[in-house]
């Protein structure tokens, strides 16, 4: 009888294993608490140990989230989480890289990075905690605030249309796009987990309400009344055209679940890099002889 072939089961991880000792600075009732819970659940379901995870964020209330996990975190500067995360993933493809931030971080100051992260298709999961307001700086207009929203910087009502994050990432070709809300925690944990498992750039817009500066209809209680699971309307996530149609309801309908999943995942940037590295490795001059490249005989 063989005794050596019984594999040791990997230690199972629970959501608690991802919870750090830091106490969140968020206001009581903030939607971000729910997002954090969903992340804990998704990560424990995935089962990668915390030290194999890099969790990158920008600046804003939501960008505090990496510090509340036991993963390696990088709470960077406003709007630059995506470039930093891409550098991390390309430098070490074995890492699970999560990116998080608010609507200002992702669609205002850092909006220019989103299309490029998408077109490179680097294997990241990007969670935007979209609350349609600048909470950390105490209630200014955000890029996703509805037209006419009155805030301290738009006291007479805003004059511009909001960015539609769903349409934005779909139209740049994101292969995985979902929306969730802490009003449906199991649903949110499920889409976060699915986004992480998706091989390529995955985007999750989370309708995470601001309890302090948000409006009544945005709060969790109101969301519970009006959220519409995409499955309940018979949406087929592989149907890009239908996804584009549904995405246009951003701001009026609160759809939850997977809006688009490319059923045939295109190769990631990382996979193409590895291919190139392997094809060219044999042609390397040893580093200590790199100057041979310049030799003139």
């Amino acid at each position, binding site marked *: 009888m063989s005794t050596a072939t019984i594999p040791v089961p990997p230690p199972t991880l629970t959501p608690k294993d991802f919870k750090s000792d*830091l106490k969140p600075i968020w206001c009581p009732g903030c939607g971000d608490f729910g997002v954090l819970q969903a992340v804990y659940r998704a990560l424990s379901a995935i089962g990668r140990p915390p030290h194999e995870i890099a969790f990158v964020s920008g600046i804003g209330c939501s960008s505090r989230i990496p510090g509340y996990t036991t993963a390696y*975190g*990088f709470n*960077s500067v406003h709007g630059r989480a995506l470039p930093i995360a891409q*550098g991390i993933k390309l*430098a070490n493809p074995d890492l699970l890289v999560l990116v998080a931030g608010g609507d200002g971080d992702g669609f205002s100051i850092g909006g220019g990075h989103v299309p490029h992260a998408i077109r490179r298709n680097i294997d990241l999961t990007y969670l935007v905690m979209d609350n349609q307001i600048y909470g950390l700086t105490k209630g200014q207009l955000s890029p996703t605030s509805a037209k006419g929203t009155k805030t301290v910087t738009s006291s007479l009502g805003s004059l511009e249309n909001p960015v539609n994050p769903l349409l934005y990432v779909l139209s740049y070709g994101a292969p995985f796009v979902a929306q969730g809300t802490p009003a449906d925690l199991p649903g949110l944990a499920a889409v976060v987990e699915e986004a992480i498992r998706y091989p390529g750039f995955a985007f999750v817009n989370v309708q995470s309400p601001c309890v302090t500066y948000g409006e009544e209809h945005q709060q969790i209680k109101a969301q519970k009344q009006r959220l519409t699971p995409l499955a309940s309307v018979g949406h087929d996530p592989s149907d890009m055209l239908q996804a584009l149609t549904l995405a246009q309801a951003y701001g009026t309908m609160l759809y939850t679940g997977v809006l688009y999943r490319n059923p045939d995942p295109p190769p990631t940037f990382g996979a193409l890099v590895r291919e190139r590295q392997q094809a*060219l490795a044999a042609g390397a001059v040893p580093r*200590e*002889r790199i100057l041979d*490249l310049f030799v003139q005989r």
Partner: protein
Amino acid sequence: MTRDLVIGMAGSGGDGIVSAGESLIAACASEGYHAIMTKSFGSQIRGGESSCRVRLAIDPVLNPGGALDVAVALNWDDFLKFGAELPVAGTTVVIYDANTGVAPDALPLVGVAPHEVFAVPIEEMARRSAKTDKAKNTIVLGLLAGWFGIGRAAILAGMRKKFAKKSAELVAANERAFQAGVEFAEAHPLATPRTMEKTTRRGARLLTDGNDMCAAAAVFAGCDFFSGYPITPSTEVMQFFTRETWKYGGVALQCEDEIAGVGAALGASFAGKKAMTATSGPGMALKTEILSLASIAELPLVVLNVQRGGPSTGIPTKSEQADLFQAVFSSHGDVVRPVLAPTTVADTFTTTVEAFNVAEQYQTPVVILSDQEIAQRKEIVDPIDTSQVRVVERRRPRADELEHYARFRMTDGGVSPISHPGMPGGTYLAAGIEHNEHGDPTASGLVHARMNEKRIRKLDPLRTRADLFHVEGDDAAPLALVSWGSSAGVCREALQLARADGLRVKLLVPYLLFPVAEEIYARFFHSVQAGLVVEQSHLGQLYRVLRMFLDVPSGVQSFCRSGANPFQPAEVAAALRDAARALHRRTGDARHQPQE
């Protein structure tokens, strides 16, 4: 016999002037000469006028030189567009295409009568010998080989190698054109022969520019991640990485903007890789916020700024040394950001490796301040013994340090062992927000003060790094030159000229510009009563930074001017003579009097 020759050539875009310069400097390398080649183009993207200068010499060439010994004009309109870049003097031999219809005694040169003038039917000779006017540049090479004795065999060998890939006819046509040039020169000897002395130096030499040298040095140092955004005059660094880095398992990423360029590199460094980005002034401005992030998050990062004329777009294709203030002071908050500067293509190698060493050892962003001239000039470099160049790795935590790991632990030197994602037991939060030893965010003024002190104190050892300074000349000299970057090469030659004039002078070239090494300067200045800080900026930025941190002797003045106007050794030497005379008047000490 001639030991030093400066050749300047200009023509239209299709004339192959730069290609001729490249053939010439390659031949110089195999003939054992030292040489520098600089190129200059009109502002057109393609076509238009182009020029190059080649200075070759028996002794090491430290700068592109001043007035031309040999001027080659394929047409005068194009030649004259380069004005001060191709200065003709009373000592110059002028060679031009007779088809310009200009009489040798009626050259369109103002206020100068060249030493000798040759109207050569260059185009006609090309047509006759090679059946195409595309061989004009080969005729020129033949003329130069014939008149100045520069490596006939080497030029021919280079040409055969270059054209062999195309066709045997092309090789034969160019050989005929080259021969025609040589024969013309032999049939019309110079009144004053200027044949280059032969060298005995043989064997492999390196031929490259500062940007390629910087990129190669980065690979040598173990850099496996480059990200950036194209910008003149640094783009060649990215081009090198996008060709080479994959072979080493590395990654090169052309980003959507300058900010992403530095952001991705910082992410790679956080992930444990040596990483760099490259840019020029405008890009540097955009990268500033993330450089400050690198400082507070204590992450190694190397940023190359190839300086060009500024502010704003300025003059993208010309050299300037006016980004020192930006490199040193552009951070918000209290930050010391080390800044290193190479002075030649050759020392770009060690300077770049040292930039990585400093970044990794002290967990800090490091700026390499190169400049357009060093970055884009081609230089013959003697082989570098890379086994003598040390490479430093960042200090990883030992197993016992990971037990209760504190990423930003207070240590005697201020450097804390650094983990990276993937390392069990090392998890921490890197952050731009102030943090305690464990990386936890804080708004405590007390912790902030202690952390600032740690981050600045850890760089103190740099200020005693005498190996990052080049000192030359008599230690007791009362006169001094201080210079950095490409201007340092001018000053090294000016030093020789001034000493030949009997001046007692010494030179200090800092490779480390910041933090200011007060004691090293103080030691250098102990004997100094007068001198010049020579640099290519309107404000004299190094001079002002030095005065901010130390007592510069009052007789030491700034000798500076805006970029795109390189200094000449003779003018620096002349300014030094003036300084010596002033010192003589002031002190009455006859030893300061230059020999007239």
